[in-house]
């Protein structure tokens, strides 16, 4: 791929991923109890663990979102974004396979947010996953500040 195009593609992916993950984290950080219920509804965690995940995950999303936009620790940020999206895709897929109709809990913790999980949710997360790989496999480290670009 043309170096110039790749440079801008990576920046666009960083901005989209950062924006999405920061936005996704805010309501969850504000309402941990509601988010814990949303996590519990997926039934993928041993009973009791949903609270821990509901507390820690939104902060990971927020910090990773800020850092990937700011050009700080971009490798680590993109790896975590990839890992999180793989987990999200797995959790949503197994819920769909079991016929559970639940709210996504992706961007809003409200039970009537109208964001029920579906194939579109999985496709969206696959899109974020691809963007994560584009950032991770980048050759150009343009607009990155720490660790310093070589």
């Amino acid at each position: 791929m043309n170096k110039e195009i790749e440079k801008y593609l990576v920046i666009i992916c960083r901005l989209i991923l950062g924006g999405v993950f920061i936005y996704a984290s805010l309501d969850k950080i504000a309402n941990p109890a509601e988010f814990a219920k949303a996590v519990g509804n997926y039934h993928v965690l041993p009973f009791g663990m949903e609270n821990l995940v509901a507390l820690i995950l939104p902060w990971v999303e927020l910090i990773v979102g800020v850092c990937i936009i700011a050009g700080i620790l971009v490798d680590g940020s993109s790896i975590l974004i990839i890992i999180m999206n793989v987990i999200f895709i797995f959790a949503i897929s197994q819920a769909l396979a079991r016929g559970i109709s639940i709210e996504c809990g992706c961007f809003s913790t409200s039970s009537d947010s109208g964001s029920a999980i579906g194939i579109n949710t999985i496709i969206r997360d696959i899109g974020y996953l691809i963007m994560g790989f584009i950032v991770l496999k980048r050759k150009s480290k343009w607009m990155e500040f720490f660790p310093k670009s070589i």
Partner: protein
Amino acid sequence: MQYLDKPFNQVVFFVVISIFLSFSSNLVRKDSIPLLAKKLEITEDIDLDSDESTLTAISLDKAKEFFENGVLFIDARDEVYYNEGHIRNAMKNVFLMELIFNIEDKQTKEDPIVVYCGDPGCGDSEDLAYDLQNEGFKKLFVFKGGWLEWSAANYPADRSNE
């Protein structure tokens, strides 16, 4: 700071910082939550005529009382186990949407339902109870002792060899 040059170390750094921030913010906020969710507690004082939504665990005695009062029981275990033996007239667990149709054929979402699985350690009954709660069912009771306690007590059951 060279430590943070490696991607793996960056991931560890992010996780550690997130754990620190999440725990400290949870400590200072008014609506903090326990680090581990509490398990369903067994409740003895239950008013079936109340309009309030309920999701609670019940004991063997309470389950027997509900059984005698004609409350619907749902077996949350796999079909193989259900076919080997189940609480008399208990409904079989199938694909969730089909199960809901089956329940609504018999009663409304406001009527009580007892859900059970194999033994006190299994989680299928709780999982199913939460699924049904999400679907709008109001009075859900998890019989934690499950098939193990019921069959040991020789209470009414349908068995494959009967």
